[in-house]
């Protein structure tokens, strides 16, 4: 669908450009040359036009790749540190499209991105196995927290695992806000419900369909529980408290994948190597220490 639009707009644009560039020249030349010759020249010039951009990419546009990533990497500020370092080192500019994991993967499938940096292992594996991506690496992981009102009405703090905490919340029918947007966090939440062998339903279970920040805000307003990533939670000053952390199922690994159909495989690979290489991993490990007292992401580079 999106590809259709892009090509349509490109067609319209090139038509307009052609019209603009042709008219003035035709006007100036008509005084010197007979109209027939003028026409010929115009048509002869046309096929040459598309050739022009092809000669250029090595100079400017090749030095630019599109990264489709989840909002969490952007919102946490990690990319603000990583990208300048990479750009300085390689001279490649990175354009970031920060969206939900679902949309990020879709962007990859449609060939509208060159590299994906996302956190939904199952969807990532599918992406690779369907042949849309190659060179998938683990990059880092961060933690999820189950957060809720300070008085913990469901007594979820007493639980030993995330699934147990969820079961307690469901049992007490304490309000719980789900992101419900098919994002990595949402998928993680759904997997924990599955682990707890429960299907959350009823008035107490609300699906916000919004980003993490908005969902946390809503949980705070509604005195509800929710599942959040560490970075977003730490960056907000809210009255919500952590009721569960550290459980194995609350770890959130990020993957970086090259889009197979990319027109700039070399640049994309350079980018991946930077993230999984020594320098990048160090930056990831350090990130957030000054502000939150502890790193928000744990580096864990590994080829899958």
């Amino acid at each position, binding site marked *: 669908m999106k590809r259709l639009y892009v090509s349509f707009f490109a067609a319209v644009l090139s038509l307009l450009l052609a019209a603009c560039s042709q008219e003035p020249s035709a006007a100036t030349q008509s005084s010197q040359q007979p109209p027939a010759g003028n026409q010929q020249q115009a048509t002869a010039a046309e096929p040459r036009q598309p050739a022009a951009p092809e000669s250029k990419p090595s100079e400017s546009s090749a030095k630019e790749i599109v990264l489709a990533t989840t909002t969490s990497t952007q919102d946490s500020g990690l990319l603000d540190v990583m990208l300048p370092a990479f750009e300085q080192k390689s001279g490649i500019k990175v354009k970031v499209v920060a969206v939900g994991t679902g949309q990020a993967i879709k962007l990859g499938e449609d060939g509208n991105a060159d590299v994906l940096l996302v956190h939904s292992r199952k969807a990532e594996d599918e992406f690779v196995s369907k042949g849309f991506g190659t060179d998938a690496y683990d990059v880092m992981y961060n933690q999820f927290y189950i957060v809720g009102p300070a008085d913990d009405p469901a007594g979820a703090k007493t639980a030993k695992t995330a699934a147990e905490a969820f079961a307690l919340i469901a049992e007490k029918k304490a309000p719980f806000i789900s992101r419900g947007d098919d994002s990595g966090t949402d998928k993680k939440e759904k997997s924990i419900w599955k682990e707890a062998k429960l299907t959350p339903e009823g008035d107490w279970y609300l*699906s916000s*369909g919004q980003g993490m920040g908005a969902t946390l805000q809503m949980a705070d*307003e509604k005195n509800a529980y929710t599942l959040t990533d560490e970075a977003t939670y730490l960056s907000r000053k809210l009255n919500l408290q952590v009721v569960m952390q550290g459980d194995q199922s609350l770890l959130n690994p990020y993957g970086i994948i090259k889009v197979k159909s990319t027109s700039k495989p070399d640049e994309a690979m350079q980018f991946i190597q930077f993230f999984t290489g020594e320098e990048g991993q160090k930056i990831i490990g350090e990130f957030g220490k000054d502000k939150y007292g502890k790193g928000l992401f744990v580096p864990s580079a590994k080829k899958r």
Partner: protein
Amino acid sequence: MLMTPEVWEVVWLSLKVTTTAILLGSLIGIPLGACLGLYSFPGKRLVIVLIYTCMGLPPVLVGVIVYLLLSRYGPLGSLGLLFTPEAMMLAQVVLVTPILAGLSLSAVQAKERAYWETAKSLGASPLQLVFTIVKEARKGIWAGVAAAYGRAISEVGAVMLVGGNIEHHTRVMTTAIILETRMGNFTAGLQMGLVLLLISFLFNSFLVIGVLNQLKTGRR
């Protein structure tokens, strides 16, 4: 997607929220605009400038203000209205009232002073006078209602903020489109967009047919 019960639910809520907001907004905006068009008083210019300014209020700003008002920590927090359809209606009322007032004002002003004088000389009380002129300016006011309806139902920023896009509760067409798009379901988003377009089309057709009929009988 097609018309599953979930989609109907979303469409229905959109219509319900916007229609309620338009009704409430009309109740405030139309008489306000008509009074401004008919009577003069000190400070009238300022009020008109304010209304015209508010006609272009960014919806998101309206959303933020209503959010802060209704927030648990805000002045009206005790009402518990945040993330309810009522909150969305409130935000849309704030959004459409200036539009309705402003467009009613110009519709009423477009009617010559002669209508005003005729009604007054026939013994209309101030209230009856406003009512008569509003009735006389109904075509222009209808156009205002259509414009306001279109703006309200297609608005997303404010309803997302104060409604929260909660499934089965405050999810409307525009917020559903955002969600579908964010999840990568461009097709579903587009389909929902088409439903939105269809509703706007139907609604405006009714209005246009009404206005055309008026024109036909009204002209000599």
